[in-house]
């Protein structure tokens, strides 16, 4: 198969890719995600012996920005029949772009577990050694702050919800007083059901997803069956690697996020943009398209809503190849914190995520499982 996406480590330094990417304002968000994810998979030439582009495929970076959107309009007159490495991004229809994005995702799905064991953050650093030095500095800065590990999630658009959910249940497992933390969590989730009811979700539709999450959480302190062991760390990982369990929880968190946004419309209304068009959407449209729909990436609105609905504190380290702020320590990473009422005394530690454009992973203080 031939693709227009980079199929080899680009000779360009990561920084310049990044800037070019950010310059492509008109590009659809879906495509941006696909490109970002493909880049994230091969952050640099380190360790990768990719040589598949014998024909020296034209990469997205090679397409001059001016050719992408010359005057805000695109000429569809001679659409290519077959997409090859030579195909220009600007020649593709939205439908073709969507299809390519889906194919990219499906390929990734075959190759990466939904969520992986913790590995040292230095592994990620190695991947950027021949790419962005800014990213390497930022990762080193994180390590100096005590963030020594990363737990990767599959880049399938559900990564925010999956990373957060895993980390949430794990925090309950590691809580100083698990019984108290679990009780508070279950009570919060129970409250959340009212939000879902108010939002008009039918119990029949959501209860199966809810039950999966609640039984997993309950198993932290009470045996799932008489004589069965309590939930352990390895079992938690196995549960989240199981597509059925993992996706049920992701769906439930999407519904909870949606219900919270719907119930607190006033707080969110000015920020409900379509990432594709930049248009302001009404609450219902935003929730249906950007929150409930499978595989739709989360942005600030969703992140804040879910943190509040779960009454947790979430810190997100943003890693990109932009240099740290002027006068700041080299490699200093900005954390965005989402806090909510009750997150100080919910009995669990804050959740930390690592964000690289288009993808979330879990940030850990330990460097192995």
């Amino acid at each position, binding site marked *: 198969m031939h693709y227009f996406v980079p199929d080899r480590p680009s000779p360009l330094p990561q920084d310049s890719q990044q800037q070019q990417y950010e310059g492509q304002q008109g590009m659809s968000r879906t495509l941006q995600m696909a490109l970002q994810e493909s880049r994230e998979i091969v*952050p640099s030439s380190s360790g990768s012996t990719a*040589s598949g582009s014998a024909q020296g495929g034209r990469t997205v970076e090679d397409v001059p920005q001016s050719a992408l959107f010359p005057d805000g309009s695109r000429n569809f007159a001679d659409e290519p029949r077959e997409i090859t490495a030579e195909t220009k991004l600007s020649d593709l229809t939205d439908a073709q772009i969507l299809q390519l994005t889906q194919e990219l995702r499906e390929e990734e799905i075959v*190759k*990466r577990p939904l969520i992986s*064991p913790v590995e040292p953050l230095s592994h990620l650093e190695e991947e950027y050694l021949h790419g962005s030095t800014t990213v390497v500095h930022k990762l080193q800065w994180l390590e100096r702050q005590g963030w020594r590990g990363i737990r990767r999630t599959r880049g399938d658009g559900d990564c925010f919800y999956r990373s957060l959910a895993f980390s949430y249940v794990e925090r309950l497992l590691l809580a100083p007083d698990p019984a108290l933390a679990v009780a508070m969590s279950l009570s919060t989730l129970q409250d959340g059901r009212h939000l879902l009811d108010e939002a008009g979700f039918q119990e029949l539709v*959501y209860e199966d997803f809810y039950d999966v999450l609640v039984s997993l959480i309950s198993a932290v302190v009470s045996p799932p069956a008489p004589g069965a062991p309590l939930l352990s760390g390895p079992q938690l990982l196995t549960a989240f690697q199981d597509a059925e369990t993992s*996706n049920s929880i992701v769906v439930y968190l999407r519904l909870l996020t949606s219900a919270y946004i719907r119930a607190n419309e006033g707080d969110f209304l000015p920020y409900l943009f379509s990432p594709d068009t930049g248009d302001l959407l009404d609450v219902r449209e935003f929730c*249906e*398209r950007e929150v409930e729909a*499978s595989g739709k990436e989360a942005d600030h609105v969703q992140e804040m809503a879910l943190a509040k609905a779960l009454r947790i504190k979430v810190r997100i380290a943003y890693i990109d190849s932009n240099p740290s702020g002027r006068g700041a320590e080299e490699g200093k990473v900005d954390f965005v914190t989402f806090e909510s009422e009750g997150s100080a005394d919910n009995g669990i530690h804050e959740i930390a995520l690592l964000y690289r454009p288009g993808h979330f992973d879990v940030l850990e203080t330990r460097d192995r499982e």
Partner: protein
Amino acid sequence: MDTLHTNSMSLREPALKSAQEPSSNKQAAGSVTKRLGNELMGLMMSSSPGISAFPKSDANLFDWVGTIEGVAGTVYEDLKYKISIHFPSNYPFVAPVIRFETPCYHPNVDLHGNICLDILKDKWSAVYSVTTILLSLQSLLGEPNNDSPLNTEAADLWSNQEEFKEQVLRHYQPIAADD
């Protein structure tokens, strides 16, 4: 394309994945069956006018046939369309595949019966069910999305409802009695 994924990540954990997927598929099948059973029950209990669906055979819960009747006051009034519904093994996390079996002249349906409907594509969510899909299709009949047509001729003709109806009737074939 494969080279895209040649990073240390996938090389480090191949065993984990292969150990994982088979069991999850098996479990998934059990829960899909439960969900589809619930949906079938829901469809039979509710009385949504003009829509119906049920499994083709008792042996296979993953392939259904359904019917949609055109809403009164639209060009599809009194016409009954047969559709096929195929559920993937990872339903409801992935949308079912739905096709018109009765030829349907419509801006968002192509000659092979493929349908362009957002909730079956990028707007799919696990909260949608066969019932919501059928109701959406029913309303799509009367309210096409002419901005993203699969049948451009039909989209262009939509503004002329009389001629449009002629085309609809010319393509239409009543569902056979033994179907």
